[in-house]
């Protein structure tokens, strides 16, 4: 297999680039810690005022914060930099060089620019999830397995949505704002979608399914979901990945380069 080797090489290149700006990485991590402090403070303010938020206790909310940070990390480390590179590529024609490579074009676009200091967030998010889960109690290994499965499928759904959004650029060339709606709504993942008013819950569940990647896995962990619901989310994620890859291929066929 060529792919793991290629991924390793891309990681190496990005590591070298990042090491040239070590101080910036340290500053970014420190700022990230400041935000963590703020997030924990706002949770403590909330739970000073109420024992549960929409039926969720402090431990569950800490775990949700972890899942949110995981999702946020995926976006900030891979998706936003890839979007920037892609949009520039469509505008000035450098996308041609990416498409000419003998590897899957989507793979190359997704992983060619990785913001590596964000890996720090991976450790932090995992710690938050582990602490939250161990404090909430009553979870079985089956719940944990469902949780992990739904985090993966939720990320896949969001990733597929992203692929469709950027692929639309092939049809509407002047579409630099392709991912703004995703970026703007990401913050809704901080809180359980069950506390939102109906219209916002619908929006973040069905239109831009942030909640499917944050609230839903947590619900599985708490044992709130029936097996058929878990199965349904898995089927949806497989279907959205299939649709996304079809849209991407159709887009590539339409693409004719900026110069021609």
């Amino acid at each position: 297999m060529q792919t793991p080797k290629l991924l390793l090489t891309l990681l190496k290149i990005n590591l070298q680039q990042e090491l040239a700006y070590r101080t910036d990485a340290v500053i970014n991590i420190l700022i990230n810690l400041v935000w963590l402090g703020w997030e924990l403070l706002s949770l403590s303010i909330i739970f000073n005022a109420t024992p549960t938020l929409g039926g969720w206790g402090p431990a569950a909310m800490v775990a949700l914060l972890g899942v949110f940070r995981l999702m946020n990390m995926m976006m900030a480390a891979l998706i936003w930099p890839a979007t920037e590179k892609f949009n520039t590529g469509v505008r000035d024609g450098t996308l041609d060089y990416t498409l000419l490579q003998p590897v899957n074009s989507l793979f190359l676009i997704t992983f060619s620019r990785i913001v590596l200091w964000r890996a720090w967030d991976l450790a932090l998010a995992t710690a938050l999830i582990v602490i939250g889960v161990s404090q909430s109690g009553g979870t079985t290994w089956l719940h944990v397995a469902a949780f992990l499965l739904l985090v993966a499928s939720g990320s896949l759904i969001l990733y597929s949505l992203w692929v469709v959004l950027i692929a639309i650029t092939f049809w509407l060339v002047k579409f630099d704002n392709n991912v703004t709606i995703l970026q703007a709504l990401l913050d809704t993942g901080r809180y359980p979608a069950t506390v939102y008013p109906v219209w916002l819950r619908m929006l973040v569940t069905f239109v831009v399914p942030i909640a499917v990647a944050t609230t839903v896995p947590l619900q599985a962990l708490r044992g709130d979901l029936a097996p058929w619901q878990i199965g349904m989310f898995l089927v949806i994620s497989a279907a959205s990945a299939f649709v996304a890859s079809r849209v991407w291929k159709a887009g590539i066929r339409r693409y004719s380069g900026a110069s021609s």
Partner: protein
Amino acid sequence: MLRIYQRLWHVNWAEQWQYRANLLMYLLFWLVSPIVYLAVWTTIAGAQGSINGLTANDFATYYLTLLIVDNLTSDITIHLLAYKIQDGTLSGELLKPIHPIITGTLTNNLAFKALTLLVLIPVWLVLCLLFQPDFSGVTLFNVLLAVPAVALGFGIAFFIGASITCVAFWTTRVYSLNELYYAVVVLFSGQFVPLDIMPPLIQNIAQYLPFQLLKYFPIQLILGKLPPEVIARNLALDVIWFVAAALLFRWIWRNGVKRFSAVGA
């Protein structure tokens, strides 16, 4: 002088108008977090009756007023100017006989505000229909009193923002500095939660800092929640911090321009 501002306004308005589709997208960013916190706190207050004396309606009116006040007092100087200092295009503006920041950048800021407000108002009305807030505490007198508070609040935000941007004369890490500044604003301004439900220590510090003058004070003033002595004290603080921020900017700008050596010069 007024003619210069008039002219700059025309230019900047036309420039911003060109990007009206982008504006709609920026607005989305602006709207999401107040709506999220509005939903969270009205849910909690609805279940608990009230929190530190704040009812569900108090939260609804607070966040809906925040949307407007935040638009009026926020400042985008760093996005308009920092790159000009970094890539050297500022040199062209320094040659003109007008101050590049308190004329050009300021009017651009205001044009952006006016245009976003134009888009915000219909969205805001829809949100009012959705959340059904009761604004009966608002009086005309309070709204009129809020005019100088909002104007001075924007002045403070503008001069602090411009001062931070001018740190770009010394370092390229000005965006990190700005993010840190934003974190402080979030903590002390009442942006995410009304200051009344913050820990007492933070409330005590916040009341002397300029940041609550940008959001918490004008909002509570409009909603008629503040006793006269607090209003008087905050208006006095407004003037003091405005002068302090203006002096800080003057000092940092003079020293910065002296240091400035454009790329290619």
